[in-house]
């Protein structure tokens, strides 16, 4: 592993200055960054540990909004009563991710910025990979693409964004507050990650000196009737083969509003507005739910080994809609 200096920040002031002067990277739980440093894929010369900064590990439940500090751990957020009650899709996206040990370590901001699990990316220089080494090619395009994207891929990269939490956040129109040398700004989670295009090594729209401080989730009429439905190769402790984050507002069995985002099948968290529109004004029954699932996957572009995800994902969306509907205060 490349040597690095380690600094511990006790306040957010000055972190961006250190980052722009030295190229230092933020270290939170380290479950992505340290993992990839061990593999020689991340090679920062300087780390700034932000986990001792006070006040960024709180969850606040306001009337129309849940606010998560960047340093809240996955396990604390997943177990928080207001989150469980007001937006189960969020709690489930976290409790169905990683393992109890990792959820105790990993932070909510770090989670958003986790990197792909593409085996060619992780396994190092014997494979071409445009994300790891721009211009080297993509081993997955003609390779084992069972875990690769059906949506959002390019000729340069078809790596799946593997996280669950960001998918749930995208479904609820969440935003992040970001702090850097240009001051504060707010970004939509759904637009935080870039499509790979010709530059798959550029994964988000964050500047190198920007730090996420808060994650804000509007929860009003939408939230309670929601679920994160995650299909995996094994029952637990695996990344999604396909997942559906769904939130509904129902009125007497009719859909007033539906939100659907897909995980495990796209290069970034993937909202499917066409499927949402297909449900609006409909009575939600199994047939309507399946039709929404079909619409969600209508534009899928499977490769050689991941075509099974179209049928699997269609059913997952339908099941998620039915589970969410059960939770509606007004069915």
């Amino acid at each position: 592993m490349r040597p690095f200096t380690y600094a511990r920040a006790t306040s957010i002031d000055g972190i961006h200055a250190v980052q722009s002067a030295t190229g230092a990277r933020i270290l939170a739980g380290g479950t992505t960054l340290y993992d990839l440093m061990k593999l020689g894929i991340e090679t920062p010369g300087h780390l700034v540990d932000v986990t001792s900064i006070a006040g960024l590990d709180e969850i606040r439940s306001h009337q129309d909004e849940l606010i998560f500090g960047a340093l809240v751990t996955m396990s604390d957020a997943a177990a928080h009563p207001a989150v469980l009650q007001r937006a189960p899709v969020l709690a489930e996206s976290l409790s169905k991710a990683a393992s109890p040990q990792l959820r105790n370590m990993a932070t909510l901001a770090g989670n958003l910025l986790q990197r792909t699990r593409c085996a060619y990316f992780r396994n190092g220089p014997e494979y071409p990979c445009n994300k790891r080494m721009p211009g080297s090619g993509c081993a997955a395009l003609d390779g084992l693409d069972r875990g690769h994207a059906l949506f959002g891929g390019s000729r340069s990269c078809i790596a799946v964004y593997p996280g669950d939490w960001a998918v749930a956040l995208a479904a609820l129109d969440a935003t992040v507050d970001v702090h850097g040398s240009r001051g504060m700004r707010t970004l939509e989670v759904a637009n935080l990650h870039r499509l790979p295009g010709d530059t798959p090594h550029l994964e988000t729209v964050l500047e190198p000196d920007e730090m996420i401080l808060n994650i804000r989730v509007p929860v009003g009429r939408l939230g309670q009737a929601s679920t994160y439905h995650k299909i995996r190769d094994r029952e637990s402790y695996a990344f999604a083969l396909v997942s559906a984050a769904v939130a509904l507002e129902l009125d007497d069995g009719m859909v007033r509003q539906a939100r659907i985002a897909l995980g495990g099948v796209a290069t970034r968290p993937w909202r499917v507005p066409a499927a949402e529109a297909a449900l609006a004004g409909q009575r939600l029954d199994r047939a309507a739910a399946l039709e929404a699932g079909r619409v969600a996957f209508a534009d899928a572009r499977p490769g050689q080994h991941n075509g099974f995800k179209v049928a699997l994902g269609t059913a997952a969306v339908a099941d998620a809609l039915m589970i969410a509907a059960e939770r509606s205060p007004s069915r």
Partner: protein
Amino acid sequence: MSEHDPSPHDRSHDLSINRRDVMLVGVAMTGVTLVGFGETTAATPSAPVARPEMNLTIHFQVNGRPIEMSVDPRASLLDVLREQLDLTGAKKGCDHGQCGACTVHVDGRRVASCLTLAAKMEGRAALTIEGLTPADGPLHPMQQAFIDHDALQCGYCTPGQIMAAVACVQEGHASSEAEIREYMSGNICRCGAYVGIVAAIRDAAVTMGG
């Protein structure tokens, strides 16, 4: 800039990063001790290999014992426990957070020690399988239950399983077999001793009052 690059450090950035709240916790590179990203100097990137003087000093507790030691900034808690403190109970299975063999408790919560940077242990307390009960005392109820239920074969995963299982009960996640399976899913057993492991945890949960 390489290790041998004699060019003087460009101090033009230093003023802009002269912030005391970003505190470097004692790192030396290319012979210069850094006390902060501020006045002293910013670090020289890309020193080729770790040298002893690059170590940093951390203060933490292991199994109730206060420890001050020098660690390589790159070291994991797992490596420090095993290689420097001779506590070889926690095992290295995958070194990437995937198997649970390295599970220990930090400040009362179970973590994967292989993905915990030792540098992050400053001011914290680790509990390993060696510290679960006093050395001359009886076994912990969870250890006894693993023996009673034959909850192991080769034993490599066992210290991690037991530390995870103790946490699982303490968290209140051992109320049913299904819940135990879910909350123990971070611990892989290559020998497939899962049936015994679940039975042991159910038993110990009662003894532990969980």
